[in-house]
């Protein structure tokens, strides 16, 4: 019988290898019998492999925060993943599909923190810790075949984190709970929504991030970015397109996908 540690290390090696090499893998849960708690341990071990390659931590992303997303993926619980320097894409930059398996993107509101948040915090306290907000696009890319997974699988795979693009940081609005959002491909809207789709108010996603991290003895730090979660269903990326997200009152952010 394998020790708990070696199972987690082995799973981390599999998901990290798939992310690094941009190839599909079968769901971990088809061969490994792991719990949700162990899945977060796999996630942590896989992110540590990134650190070992010289990446550093930039923040946290929240997932399954909108009903549209939860329905699209067939799950019903919040998840988090870690954002590292290797995932950062400059506003106006370009990505190459060959670095991904089957990437999708979604428009989000991003928070920049100016103080730590740990454990059980209220919405007012959480929003008071927000220094600035930005329009953002998350590029999600499950390493699993056909983008199909269980909650445990996706958590182990760093919650499908693979890229994120941030627009300019802006002064936070008094109320971020209903900002209109448009995701456009080549100037044509493909997803339309509001930050309200994120748990009724994206500040709740920040509150959840602090609470969930505390269960593994971690906290959000000043200077970190929190991607609050997709406000619409995710759209598959294809070669040669130009992607833009606009948020009401916050301007826009975008990137290109290089042609084949």
């Amino acid at each position, binding site marked *: 019988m394998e020790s708990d540690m070696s199972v987690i290390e082995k799973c981390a090696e599999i998901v990290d290898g798939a992310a690094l090499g941009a190839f599909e893998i079968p769901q971990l849960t088809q061969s490994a019998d792991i719990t949700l708690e162990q899945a977060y341990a796999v996630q942590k071990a896989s992110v540590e492999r990134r650190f070992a390659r010289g990446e550093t931590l930039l923040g946290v992303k929240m997932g399954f925060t909108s*009903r549209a997303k939860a329905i699209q993926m067939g799950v019903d619980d919040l998840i988090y993943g870690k954002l590292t320097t290797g995932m950062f894409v400059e506003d106006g930059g370009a990505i190459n599909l060959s670095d991904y398996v089957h990437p999708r993107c979604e428009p989000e509101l991003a928070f920049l923190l100016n103080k730590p948040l740990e454990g059980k915090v209220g919405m007012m306290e959480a929003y008071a810790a927000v220094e600035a907000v930005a329009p953002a696009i998350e590029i999600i890319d499950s390493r699993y075949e056909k983008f199909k997974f269980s909650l445990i699988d996706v958590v182990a795979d760093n919650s499908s984190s693979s890229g994120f693009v941030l627009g300019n940081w802006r002064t936070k609005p008094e109320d971020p*709970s*209903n*900002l*209109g*959002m*448009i995701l456009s491909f080549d100037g044509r*809207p493909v997803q*339309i*929504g*509001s*930050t*309200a*789709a994120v748990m*009724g108010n994206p500040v709740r996603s920040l509150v959840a991030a602090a609470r969930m991290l505390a269960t593994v003895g971690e906290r959000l730090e000043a200077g970190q970015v929190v991607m609050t979660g997709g*406000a619409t269903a995710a759209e598959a990326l294809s070669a040669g397109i130009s992607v833009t997200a*606009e*948020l*009401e*009152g916050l301007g826009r952010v975008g990137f290109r996908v290089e042609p084949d």
Partner: protein
Amino acid sequence: MSDDKTLISRLADRLFEAENTNTPCAPLRSEFAPDNLALAYAIQEHNVKRGQAAGRRVIGRKIGLTSKTVQRQLKVDQPDFGTIFADMVVGDGEEISFSRVLQAKVEAEIALVLKSDLDMEQPTVADIISATAYALPAIEVVGSRITDWDITITDTIADNASSGLIILGDTPKSLSEIDMRLCGMVMESGGDVVSVGAGVACMGSPLNAAVWIAYAMKKLGQPLRAGDILMTGALGPMVNVKPGACYDARISGLGSVRAVFGSE
């Protein structure tokens, strides 16, 4: 021609009957060509005239099928319109009997109230902006007199664009205070988010829908007039109404409005 007249009045009667007896009827589409929108509008007009003859006051128009998703579902590439009577307007938070609208659904919209006539040829978005007195947050209660909402474009046009009631908020705003394209919309019921969207979902901007109706009404020789209310079209997906439920819609920059339904 007289055959058409008989057909129009017969089909208009079917819809009128359905409304009055609170019993949905069969679709109309098998009775005439699927691309004969003019005939479908003539059926609508027949019932509008019937309403006016009974003393009902026309106060504006609603624009329907303004979202790309709904246009795709009905395989059309243009919106449609319906007619609003004064007795279809409900105040913010006033209780609505659940049985008042057949197969009711709700959607949040921006209502525009005109301060001048739009009787120029080929109106533009600038004409709309100049002619708008103020915008209001609004909820449209749509309904269908056709069984199970089994509609095509001609069915819904004939059925007054599936109109039911409109609930107007009471916070008038100037167009310069609203980002018509990016304004967020959220509708909540019982503490749950039930629909979200933004201005762009309505033909790219609710003002584009207003241009379309101004153009269409001018062409029909019934130009929009000062005081008319335009319900510009849904900003997010429609929601099925449940008895006893309250639907609270917020439109960023515009305020909020509530549709409250009785249990019967």
